[in-house]
Structure formats: structure tokens, C-alpha cells
């Protein structure tokens, strides 16, 4: 294996990144994952693709219109640029619609790199659910391009028991197009979710958000940037972090409004919940606005569970662990509520519930 050169925590964008865990995950020997791939797919009609250690597994897949092949990512991102090789591509013509696409990444150890490209023609519609399970370092890049009026709903759940998942999204959202990407980190792995969404068309909508749940000595983080280049665009970044034990969850989100991108409506909400005093939540909200007729609501808070609410639930007969779980679930609810498809949202909520049962 070649020496892994990684970003240094001295660089501002990487100050909370847990590159030591990434390195350790990359160095693990592959072993049997002990997870049946079939169980990682949700019960949805629609195309399915399984990648095991970054290699496409046709036996468990029914790719439909999704193509598998070599992709060379055109990215300057230090992790994203490494994610070349065999990957998957969804290219839809104008007006086409494919929903319920599922991509499962199962790792057994070591490092794996899978690029993805999603290109939707005018008014095309797609929805994709991605699931990460197993171990090792899963490094991914998704390059997304949405033509006028196209709509993409993407839901990503990170459920690896251990190891590290790094995801880099680079998206170009055209006129009146809509991109929604929601992430749930509810496994035992470390994560780095990186995103650069650019609203290049008038009236575009882009959203990237989700919930990161950490415990033990785990570290998860997102570093997301949304750039408005055209007028009348709107964007949302709704992130929730829940940290227990000695874990660290970090949310860095940035909104940039270019000169001339008038009537931009941006919403940024970063909230952290500490389940233990030994845990850490880092928040870094950033706004950079060069236009004068812009609305950018933003909020960033970290706190503990409301003790009064906890006692209120207990006084009605709910024990402390369950009451804590209910309030914590309620805390992440608005992030997961952004998932448009009910069955997918319920599956993600069930994953969050399972995490809570284990953590509390």
C-alpha cells in the first residue's frame, strides 16, 4: 500500500477531522463482515446495487438504468480525488423518473473507493438511498448535475460498525432544480461528510443536512458549503448532532451568496445535544454574503436535554432511559423529517431508534 497522505488538522477545514481513525480503518485486514447484504436493502421497488469492498456484486444487484463502470473524478478535494475506479452512474433524460434506487456499500476492512455520477435532464426525477455497513475505510465521491427543473432526493445512512466513511458531494443545481441530500450517521464508524453544492440556475433549491449520532470515542463530522450564484435561489442546512460518552460530533456549514444572487433565501440550523458532560459538539456556522437583498436565517446552539421535560415524561410513567430516548429522537426529528419518502424516512428513524437503544 502506498503512503496515505491526508489533510492536516492544521488546515482550517480539517481541524476536527479524525484522520487517525481513517488511517487505522484503511490499514485493517479484510475479514468476513458477518452481515447479510440482503438485509441492508430497504423493501423498495426499484434498482439495487451492492458494492462489497468497493467491487460491484451483480449477484445481489438489479441495476436497471444505473450503469456500472470506471469513473475518473474531476475533483480537487483531497479525499474525493482519490475516490476513482469502478463506480456507478445514473443519467436520466428529460422528464424521466426513477425512484427507489438503492446503493449498498458493504466493507470488510481495508480501503475502498467508489465514485458516483448523477446527471438528471430537464424535469427528470430520481430518488436514491445509500447504505454503508461493515468495516474499513469507505471513500466515496458523488458528482451531481441537475438540469432545469430536475429533482433529486438522496438519503444516506452510515451504519458501519467500525472503520471510517468519507463522502464528498459536488453538485451543480440548475434553474428551478431541487437537490435534497439527508445523512444519518448512526453506526460506530468515524465519518467525514463533505459537500460543495452550487446553485447555478435561477430559483434553484439545494439542501444538505441530517443527524450525526456519536458515542464511545467516535468522531463524526460534516463540512458542507452551499454557494448561491444566481437569483431567487433557496437552500437549507439543517444538522443535528447528538454526542454521548467521550465522542465528538462536529458540524461546519457555510452559505455563500455571490454578488448579484439577489432574493436568496438561505436557512441554516446547527444544533448539538450533549448526552454526557464528557462529550463534545463543535459547531461552525459561516455566512458569506455579497448581495444586499438576501434572507439568511441561521442558528447554532449546543445544550443538554431539558431536565424539566425529562421529569415530566417520567412523572407520567416513562422510565428515565426511555424518556431520554424519546427526547433525543425528538431532537433529531426535524433533520430526518426532510426525507421526502415516508418509507425511507421511517427506516432512517428506526435506525436512529436502534442507535438510541444501544447508547442509553
Amino acid at each position, binding site marked *: 500500500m502506498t503512503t496515505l497522505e491526508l489533510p492536516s488538522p492544521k488546515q482550517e477545514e480539517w481541524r476536527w477531522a479524525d484522520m487517525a481513525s481513517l488511517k487505522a480503518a484503511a490499514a485493517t485486514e479484510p475479514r468476513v463482515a458477518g452481515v447479510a447484504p440482503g438485509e441492508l436493502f430497504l423493501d423498495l421497488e426499484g434498482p439495487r446495487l451492492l458494492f462489497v469492498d468497493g467491487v460491484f456484486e451483480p449477484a445481489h444487484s438489479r441495476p436497471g438504468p444505473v450503469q456500472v463502470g470506471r469513473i475518473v473524478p474531476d475533483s480537487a478535494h483531497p479525499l474525493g480525488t482519490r475516490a476513482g475506479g469502478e463506480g456507478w452512474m445514473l443519467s436520466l433524460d428529460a422528464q424521466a423518473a426513477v425512484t427507489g434506487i438503492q446503493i449498498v456499500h458493504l466493507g470488510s476492512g481495508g480501503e475502498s473507493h467508489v465514485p458516483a455520477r448523477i446527471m438528471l435532464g430537464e424535469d427528470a426525477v430520481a430518488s436514491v438511498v445509500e447504505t454503508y455497513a461493515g468495516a474499513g475505510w469507505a471513500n466515496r465521491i458523488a458528482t451531481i448535475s441537475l438540469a432545469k427543473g430536475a429533482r433529486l432526493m438522496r438519503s444516506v445512512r452510515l451504519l458501519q460498525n467500525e472503520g471510517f466513511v468519507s463522502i464528498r458531494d459536488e453538485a451543480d443545481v440548475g434553474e428551478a432544480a431541487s437537490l435534497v441530500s439527508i445523512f444519518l450517521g448512526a453506526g460506530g464508524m468515524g465519518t467525514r461528510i463533505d459537500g460543495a453544492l452550487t446553485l447555478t440556475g435561477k430559483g434553484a433549491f439545494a439542501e444538505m443536512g441530517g443527524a450525526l449520532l456519536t458515542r464511545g470515542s467516535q468522531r463524526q463530522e460534516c463540512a458542507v458549503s452551499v454557494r448561491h450564484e444566481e437569483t431567487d435561489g433557496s437552500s437549507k442546512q439543517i444538522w443535528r448532532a447528538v454526542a454521548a460518552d467521550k465522542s465528538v460530533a462536529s458540524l461546519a456549514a457555510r452559505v455563500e451568496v455571490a454578488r448579484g444572487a439577489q432574493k436568496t433565501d438561505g436557512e441554516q440550523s446547527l444544533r448539538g445535544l450533549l448526552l454526557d458532560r464528557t462529550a463534545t459538539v463543535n459547531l461552525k456556522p459561516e455566512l458569506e454574503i455579497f448581495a444586499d437583498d438576501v434572507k439568511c436565517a441561521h442558528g447554532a446552539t449546543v445544550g443538554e436535554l*431539558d*431536565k*424539566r*421535560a425529562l*421529569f*415530566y*415524561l*417520567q*412523572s*407520567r*410513567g*416513562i*422510565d*428515565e432511559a*426511555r*424518556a431520554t430516548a*424519546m*427526547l433525543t*429522537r*425528538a*431532537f433529531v*426529528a*426535524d433533520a430526518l423529517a426532510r426525507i421526502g419518502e415516508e418509507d425511507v424516512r421511517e427506516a432512517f428513524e428506526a435506525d436512529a431508534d436502534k442507535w438510541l437503544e444501544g447508547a442509553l
Partner: protein
Amino acid sequence: MLKIDNLRAEVDGKEILKGLSLEVHAGEVHAIMGPNGAGKSTLGYVLGGRPGYAPTGGSVDFDGADLLEMAPHERAAAGLFLGFQYPVEIPGVSNVQFLREALNAQRRGRGEAALSGGEFLKLARAQADALGMDQEMLKRPVNVGFSGGEKKRNEMVQMGIIGPRLAILDETDSGLDIDALKAVGDGINRIMRAPGKAVILITHYQRLLDYVRPDFVHVLEMGRITRTGGPELAQQLEREGYGAVAA
């Protein structure tokens, strides 16, 4: 049913209850009145088991069990209901979800079968109707955006659904207009005026007692009960003030 003997308790290191004794039997309604700062709400919280309200002496026997040794949710399962002066808003948790979880947790605690979603909804709707609460509010997050009166009605709906044996209602009449006061009073009578049940009404004013007639009225001052009488004592307090009556 409930026997409080020489109860002492402190909050933030300060003694608030200073040897309070009270006995409540099944079928009785007791009113506890007293000036601000006398320890009325503290009594409710100590009996409910709120963290930070620490008993330091005395005993509380609830149907033969040591109440002070029980966790808050165990007290609820044993039949104790604490009505809050300031019901808490819980964003992200619907009333229906909250109450179904609560009721079924209590039922499990008592070794009874859990209610199905359908059975529960039927019960919840009936109680909401009886209290004049819009059924839509059952679906809303617990107390979020509710007016003061709506929160108190919601407490009564909860009490109706849970069906406790002993209700301790802390200033349930505060913040209520006259219609809501009547609805809440009727609710208390309907739900709790039954053999085998008892109520402790903690209140500052006499007006709720026009609707829920107490069997006993106690004056709580400086952390202990200083006087006990019938309903006429409440009227006298209203007329003459705590200072005059206690003196």
C-alpha cells in the same frame, strides 16, 4: 392511602418542608392552601420524585409502600399523578405518542397488557371530548403553542387517560378563565370523585374549590401544616387572608 409523616425536604441546600404531616384516605379530596413560598409546589415535587427536591427526613407511605424509595415512573405506575403548575412543552413528541407510551409503560409496570393503537385512540378521544379539548390537539407536540388554559386542560386529559388513584394537582387553577376553570373542575370531579381515589389540590385561591368541594382544607405555612378544617376554612382564608387566619 397516603400517609406523610414529619416530612422534611430541601431544595438547593435550603430546607423548605419542615416536618409536614398529612393523611389522605380513599374517597377524600384535600385542599392545601398557603401563601407563596410556603412549600406547596415543593410538596408536590417531592411526592412526585423530581430530582433536586431531596427528602431529608420523615416518611411517605403510599398504600403500604415507601413512596420516597420509588423512581418517578414507578410512583406513576403505583397510581400517583402529578398535575403540573407549568406543564412542559416537548417539541417533536406528539401528545398521542407521549400518552400512549406513558399509559402502556404504567400498564406494563402493573403487569397489565398494553393497549393497541386503536384502543388507545378511542380512550384519548373520549377524554379530549369530555374536557372540551379539540381532538386535533392530541396530534400536536405536547403543549407546544398551547395557551395556559389549554395546557391545564391537557393535564386533565392526561389524568383521564391514565386514570390514577391519587392525583396531586399543583395550582391547576392558575391561568384559567372561568370556562376553563369550570371544565377543569368538572374534569377533576368526573375522573377522581370515585371510591378508591383521592385528590390533593394545591391552590392559592378558593375559586377552584367552588367547583371541586374539598373534604379537608389545610393551611401550609413555612414548610408545615399549621391548620386543618373543612371547606369553610378556605372561605375564611379568602376573606381574611393567610396572615390573619394563621395568627
